[in-house]
């Protein structure tokens, strides 16, 4: 599943970024690296972009990019 599939309040662990080049590099530099936890905080009023919390800060990105980020859902216990 991808980051775009997580609903508000759900969290996951990043598995892989399917992007390449400068964009992938930028996401990695901002902390989107394999093994990191993310939680989807919010969806913008118009449905896109989304806000996620990662490495204790808030990052916003579009669903288009979120779809390229593979995650593993973390089920709440």
């Amino acid at each position: 599943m991808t980051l775009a599939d997580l609903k508000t309040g759900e969290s996951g662990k990043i598995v892989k970024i399917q992007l390449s080049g400068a964009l992938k590099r930028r996401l990695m530099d901002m902390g989107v690296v394999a093994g990191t936890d993310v939680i989807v905080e919010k969806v913008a009023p118009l449905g896109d972009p989304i806000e996620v919390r990662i490495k204790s800060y808030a990052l916003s990105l579009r669903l288009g990019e979120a779809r390229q980020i593979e995650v593993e859902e973390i089920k709440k216990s």
Partner: protein
Amino acid sequence: MNKQNTPFVNQEHNTVKNNLTIAVAGNPNSGKSTLINAIAGSRLQVGNWPGVTVEKKSASFDFQGRKITLVDLPGTYSMSPYTQEEVIARDYLVREKPDVIINVVDATNLERNLYFSLQLLELGIPLVMALNMHDEAAGKGFRIDEEKMASILGCAVIPTVATKGEGIGRLMETAVAFADASEAHRPVVISYGDDIEKAALTIEKSLKDHPDILAGHLPLRWMALKMIEGDARAIENYKTAQYAAVAENATHHLRSAHGEDLEALMADTRYGLAAGLTREALQKPETRKRELTEQIDAVVLNRYAGIPIFLLAMWLMFKLTFDIAGPFTAWLDGVIGGPLSRWAEIFLTAISAPEWITSLVMEGIIAGVGAVLVFLPPIFAMMFFITLLEASGYMARAAFVMDRMMHAIGLHGKSFIPLLLGFGCNVPAVYATRTLENQRDKALTALLIPLMSCGARLPVYVIFTGVFFAAYAGTVLWSLYILGIVLAVLMGLLFKKTLFRGEAPVFIMELPPYRMPTAKNLMIHTWEKGKHYLIKAGTWILAISVFVWFGLNMPWGVESKKDSYLGKTGQIIAPVFAPLGFGTWEAASSLLTGVVAKEIVVSTMSEVYVPEAGEEQQEEAPSFGENVKEIGVSFAGAFVEAGKNVFSTFGIATMSAEEEEGTTGLKTAIAKVFTPLSAYAFMAFVLLYLPCFIVLVAMRDEFGTWKWAGVTIIYQCVLAWVVAFVIYQGGSLIGL
């Protein structure tokens, strides 16, 4: 000075330099500019969103009898830059060799900030870490072991609160001590693991004899790591076959062990280290409490309320701007037109100035510059609200909320920030496009910025709405702002289909926490923004006013202004404006001089329409005391009025309701030559035709070519003419 934090002090090597250069680097929005302002007493721009500083700026000050220059760099997430301002920071750090780097780290966000610190350490320059936002970290219950961090990283770590100036004394002492000991500085090499280190060492060996490295231009280890990462921009010069082969060989083992994506490997390794370090040094409370920012965002970014709140915020900003400023504008108008003019006249008579000087001062300078100065209140009010948006953190939210809409016109949320800044002044807005990732987004955004009605256009609207639409001035004023926005959307769509057919940009942005701006900061940054308008009044507008006066009075002894040089020029171009409803030489020459800056349209008009000699009624001159009293009383009145406006009206108060002295002459004159319809067409034309030439120069500056400035000139002139034509002719057809 704290000994344990200065491991590199070595008295034998202590050659004291008189001038020190200290680079201040770190992640965006970590407080670099705030810190420099606190240390050096400078007024660098500060705001609570990533990407405020887009240029390298410096501030110097004396410290223990030595000159220290602090270099404020744009914030950057990595030494592999993604946006243009990050390139500036990277290039400076790599090429300019500052004596010391102060790395500003946001203590509430250690891991991501340390990821960049690790890359700074690769440069081998002495580094002092300012563990900033210590107040916020403490508020979250974070406990950070600075000494452990310092010993692991081999640098000094000093907690700071830049907004309050806490810790800056110790920070500077340590930084200076590090600089003095820099000869003895042995950079601590933080190991990235055997495989990477081995590859790095191999490359270092073969890079050693490279001329650039020899000349000491580039740090060796940094270069080696960049070659492993394959960072194209950093290694451009080393792509010779020889070095490519070296890198290829050196990384052979790495690639077979870790896969082909060495860039990801490096990022993972650095983040691994940063995470490890964070675990070692940071103690977080067991449970994370819901923070204020999240509570505010739950409302502000709510699915249903988000957009209405955004619109409300925009509406409030404009409403308050006009409500608060209106009475003060009227007051200034009264002062300049009344007491000030009278005093000037008395003074000129007293020194028995020749008649032409009197005319130049009264009808040229005071009328021209005064017409513009009157609008200082709304301009400062606008700058104040923009500063408030920036400082609170709402700016980034506006980008988040608007992204979807901006996407439709081929832009993204981040473009929204420059556009919003454009309502204050288009010039900084053009520079703010630098935070956008690529040339396409930047150019498209810059082309649309002039459609955002800046403060300088306000004088024109206010005078005309005051005369023709006094009863519903607010609505008319609004409609002009909206017209600009609607046209920006349409032009965006058009440009997206023509000049900018490329792919739509990507939106990735950090949302900072909300922060309470301090009154002092608001004042300083409002002033810094607004003062340019004041300076402009004292320079350009003064010069043009004088120029216009000569244009109107030459050749000497000309009987009617119509036959003056300016009048004749106006007559030549006037026919172009005839179909728009204002084909008079007066309007034409005002628009012509208004190319320099839009408020000059008004200042020229007030010279052009100055009553011909003899028309002026003589009144009893009030005494000096009465004059001063008048100024004071009307100022107090303005205060009361402003207060009433804010609470009483829901529309925009008319800014020029009462008939005061001053621009009254101008108003009666335009009431005779314009109709409401042609006045509206004229205002639309002023909104749209050319940005002022300073904006054009800014565009040339930003893009290194006149191309986009040229496109702007052409499309705006055409657009202005067409829109004014449609308004005037359309209106005439339906009988307005």
